[in-house]
C-alpha cells in the first residue's frame, strides 16, 4: 500500500498531475463509497464462505437440521472424501471433462479466428453473426434445444447420422451411457464457448500489424512460419487468458449437467462436481460433506484463476 502512495506522490509532484492528490481532503470519502459494495459482498459471499469453512469441519447432517448441535470433527470430512472412491471418480471425471472441453474449445476457437482473418467480408460477417447468436442463447434455452436435437427417437442428430451408409443410429440413446452422455455435454459446452474464444482471439489477431507480417513475408517466411513465429507469440497473452477462463467455466457446468440428467439419468456415474455437491447438500442434507467438497471446488478454481487475477491486476496498475 505504501508503495502505491509514494510512487503516486512522486509522479504527481512535478506539475502535470493526471491523478490529483485528492486524498488530502476528505480521507474517508473513498471508504464511504465502498461501504455498500463491501456490505453486500460480506452478506452474500463472505458469510456463506465462512459458514462453509466452519461447517466443513463439523458433522452437520439431518440431526443438525433439527437443532442438534454440530460436533466439531476436524478434518474428518476431508479424510472421508479423500478415501471415498466415488469422490475420486467425480473429481477425475470433472477434471477430464474440463480439460478436454477447454482444449477442444480453444482449438476450434483459434481456428475459427484465423479463418475469419482469411476470408472475405461477407463470409466473415456470416460466421460472426452465427457465432454471436449461439453465444447469446440463454443456457437453459440452449439445453432444451440440444436435448431435442439428441432426442432418441425424433432427434435430428440420430436422423442425420442414420443416413450415413452403414451407420445404424436409429433410436440410439445418447444420454443413458456415461461416455456418450459426457460427449453430448462436451459438444454442447464447446458450442456455447467457442464464440467467446473466437471473438477474443480474432480481436487479438487484428492487433497484429500488417507491417510486421509484410516484413516477415519479405524475409521469406512461409504462411505457416508467419503463424508460428510471428502471429502466435503476439497473441499468446490473449490465448493464455482465454484458456484460463475456459478452464474455470468448464468446471462450473452445473446447469448443463442437471438439465441433461433431467432428460437422461440421475445416477451417480453421470455426476460432475456441481451435481455431486447438490446431491450431498440439497438431497442427502449432509452439509458437512457438501461444504468440504465445495471448499475443494473453490480451492481448485482459485488455483486456476490466480494467473488470470494477476494479469488483471497488472492492467489495473497501468490504468
Amino acid at each position, binding site marked *: *500500500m505504501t508503495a*502505491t502512495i509514494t510512487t503516486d506522490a512522486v509522479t504527481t509532484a512535478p506539475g502535470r498531475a493526471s491523478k490529483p492528490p*485528492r*486524498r488530502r481532503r476528505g480521507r474517508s470519502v473513498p*471508504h464511504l*463509497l*465502498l461501504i*455498500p*459494495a*463491501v456490505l*453486500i*459482498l460480506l452478506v*452474500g*459471499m463472505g*458469510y*456463506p464462505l465462512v459458514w462453509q469453512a466452519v461447517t466443513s469441519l463439523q458433522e452437520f447432517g439431518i440431526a443438525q437440521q433439527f437443532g442438534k448441535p454440530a460436533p466439531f470433527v476436524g478434518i474428518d470430512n476431508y479424510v472421508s472424501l479423500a478415501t471415498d472412491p466415488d469422490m475420486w471418480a467425480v473429481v477425475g471425471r470433472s477434471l477430464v471433462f474440463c480439460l478436454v472441453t477447454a482444449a477442444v474449445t480453444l482449438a476450434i476457437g483459434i481456428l475459427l479466428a484465423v479463418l475469419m482473418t482469411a*476470408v472475405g467480408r461477407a*463470409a*466473415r460477417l*456470416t460466421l460472426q*453473426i452465427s457465432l454471436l*447468436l449461439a453465444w*447469446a*442463447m*440463454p*443456457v*437453459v*434455452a440452449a439445453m*432444451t*434445444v440440444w436435448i*431435442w*436435437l439428441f432426442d432418441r427417437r*425424433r432427434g*435430428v442428430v440420430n*436422423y442425420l447420422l442414420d443416413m450415413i451408409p452403414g451407420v445404424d443410429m436409429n433410436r440410439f440413446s445418447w444420454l443413458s451411457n456415461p461416455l456418450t452422455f459426457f460427449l453430448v455435454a462436451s459438444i454442447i459446452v464447446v458450442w456455447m464457448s467457442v464464440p*467467446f474464444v473466437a471473438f*477474443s482471439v480474432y*480481436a*487479438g489477431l487484428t492487433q497484429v500489424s500488417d507491417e510486421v507480417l*509484410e516484413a516477415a513475408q*519479405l524475409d521469406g517466411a512461409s504462411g505457416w512460419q508467419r503463424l508460428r513465429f510471428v502471429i502466435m507469440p503476439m497473441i499468446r497473452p*490473449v490465448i493464455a*487468458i482465454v484458456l484460463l*477462463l475456459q478452464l474455470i467455466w468448464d468446471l*462450473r457446468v452445473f*446447469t448443463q449437467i442437471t438439465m441433461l440428467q433431467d432428460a437422461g439419468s440421475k445416477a451417480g456415474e453421470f455426476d460432475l*462436481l*456441481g451435481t455431486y*455437491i*447438490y446431491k450431498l*447438500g440439497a438431497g442427502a442434507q449432509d452439509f458437512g460433506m457438501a*461444504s468440504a467438497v*465445495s471448499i475443494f*471446488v*473453490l480451492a481448485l478454481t482459485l488455483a486456476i484463476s490466480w494467473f488470470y*487475477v494477476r*494479469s488483471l*491486476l497488472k*492492467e*489495473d496498475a497501468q490504468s
Partner: protein
Amino acid sequence: MSATTIPAVAEERTAPAIDAPDRPRSTKLRLRPKVRAGRVLLSVLAVVIAIVWVFPVYWMVNSSLLPNRQLQSFIPTFFPIGGSLDNYGNALADGSFFTALGVSLSITLIVVFFCLLFAFLASVAISRFRFRGRASFVLAVLIVQMLPAEGLFIAQYKMISSAGLLNSIVGVSIIYTAAVVPFTIWMLRGFVAGIPAELEEAAMVDGLSRSQAFMRITFPLLAPGLVASGVFAFLQAWNEFTVALVLLPSEQMHTLPLWLRGFIQASATRETDWGQVMAASTLVAVPVIVFFLIVQGRMTSGLVSGAVKG
C-alpha cells in the same frame, strides 16, 4: 502495390537482390488464381461452419412453429412451411409463463438497480482515489468474481433458509447482487478511469463544487458505461439457474429458466410436446439475444482487456 515498392527500396541497399523488384510481382501473378481459389474455398468453409453453428438456434425457432403432428414424424421437417404460432399459444395458456416472467423481472430489476448503484460508488472510489486498502479491495473483487456458484450455493441456501427467505425475491436478489457486483465494478472502473479528471477540475475552476462537477460533467459521460454494465447485470440475473434452483423451490416463485426446465423434467414421465417446449425456449431466448447483441463487444473487451490491448 506497396509490396512492390518496398523491395525496390530495399534492393538499393542490399546488392544481391538484383531481380527483387520483379520477383514478388511475378510470383504474385502466378499465385493469384491459386490464392483466389483457396480464398473461395475458405469462404465456403466459413459459411458451412456458420450454418452448423447457428443450426440449434434455427432449429429452436423452426420447431416452435411446427404442429406436433409434424414433429412426431420420424422424418424431420427442415423448414417451417405451413407453420403457425399455435405452440406459443399453448406454452402461454396456463399463465405460468407470466408468473415466471413477473418473478424474473422483479429479481432482475432489483439486481440491476443495486448492482449499478453499488458498483458506481465503488468504481468511483477505486478509479478516482488512492487510499489505504484500495489494492486489497481490487484484489478481493477480482477473486470473488471468479468464485463459482457451485462452490457456494449450498452455504447460501443454508443462510437464506435460516433467515426465512427461501422462495422470496429478497433472498435471491441479495445473492445475485453479491455475485454480479464484482464484475460490474470492474467494468465501470474502466469507464470512470476513461473520463479525464481534468474535466471536473476545469468545472471546479469555473465555480462548481466537486460533487456538482461530478454530477454535471462526469456522470453524463458515464451513461454508456452504465448502460453496458446494466445490461451485463441484467443478463446474469435473467439467465441464472444454479442459485435460483436452490433458493426458489416453490413453483409459484420459479424464474423463467426454472420454468423452462420444468418442460424437460416433465418429459421424463410423459411424451414431450417439443413444439411447445421450443416455443417456450424461443420466448425466453429472444429478449436475451437482443440485449446481448447490444453489449457483446464490451463484454469481450472487459474480460480480456489487458491481453488484447497489450
